[in-house]
């Protein structure tokens, strides 16, 4: 097990890709020709180079998706519960795939235990309009996991202490986004 994220082969990105990432990380222009506008700003001429590069970044997973990033809280999703589960190692990945596919689970990860105080190895983030909704969803998760659950808990967030989207600051800086 590697100590951190399983970084595999990093995609090859050239300087124009990096410039494009910097130009679009805070958002696309809200005009009828957003890609053309970016091209103009970067001195790339027409929109084709921008379109092709963004499509490639999307295809190789550097871009997860292009669209709106909703503000959960403002949309009425006031409860945010991190549900954590102690699942036997031999089935945790199968269970994770199943839970990750649920509509109300926004993120689902396998993470290391810290025994004895922290036996949980599967984390599923559940958003809901209220704690009651979150609890209903967590019951659904429990039902799916069945007797594989040895122990579980919900950790509600009571306060956001910091929230920043990290940015690429200069060329070659390996930092970004949220």
């Amino acid at each position, binding site marked *: 097990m590697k100590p951190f994220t399983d970084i595999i082969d*990093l995609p090859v990105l050239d300087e124009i890709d990096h410039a494009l990432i910097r130009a679009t990380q805070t958002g696309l222009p809200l005009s009828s020709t957003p*890609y053309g506008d970016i091209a103009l700003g970067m001195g790339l001429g027409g929109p084709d180079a921008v379109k092709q590069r963004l499509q490639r970044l999307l295809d190789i997973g550097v871009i997860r998706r292009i669209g709106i990033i909703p503000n959960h809280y403002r949309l009425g999703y006031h409860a945010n519960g991190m549900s954590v589960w102690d699942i036997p190692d031999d089935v945790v990945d199968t269970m994770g795939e199943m839970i990750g596919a649920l509509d109300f689970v926004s993120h*689902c*990860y396998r*993470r290391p235990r810290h025994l004895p105080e922290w036996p949980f190895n599967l984390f599923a983030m559940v958003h809901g309009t209220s704690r009651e909704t979150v609890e209903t969803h967590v019951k659904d998760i429990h039902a799916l996991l069945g007797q594989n659950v040895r122990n579980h808990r919900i950790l509600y967030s009571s306060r956001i*202490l910091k929230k920043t989207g990290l940015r690429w600051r200069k060329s070659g800086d390996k930092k970004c986004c949220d």
Partner: protein
Amino acid sequence: MKPLQRDLINNLQGGFPICDRPFQELATRLGYDEETVIKGVKDLITDGYVSRFGPLYNTEKLGGAVTLAAMKVPAERFDQVAEQVNAFEEVAHNYEREDTLNMWFVILAENENALLKVIDQIEATTGITVLNFPKEKEFFLELRLEVPEE
């Protein structure tokens, strides 16, 4: 919320077209005109329903190292420790959660060594052990938040 805003939120959490007139294409798909859709997205941002419109980048694919970390902070020191932790620019998000492990934060650094160093520094500054929960596997899906009709 107006029907237009709801349509945009429910249909635009991904899949924004890559073509010369993407808003035009989207408008045709949703049954609006281009100008209405552009204005609609602007309003969603102005009203705070949407925090951003554009590509969502995958940090790890860009070469960074990310982890989730947690600490057990004594109640009487909580605000002071929050300030100390937040002062690290590598700390991206920090949440208070209702648990004995009551502070949970995401650290993003240039590489794994830099990340380990930040954890050491946080422990040295606060005198509190940092539990590291690096992601071992991601069960990823698109976020599909739905806004129901009123």
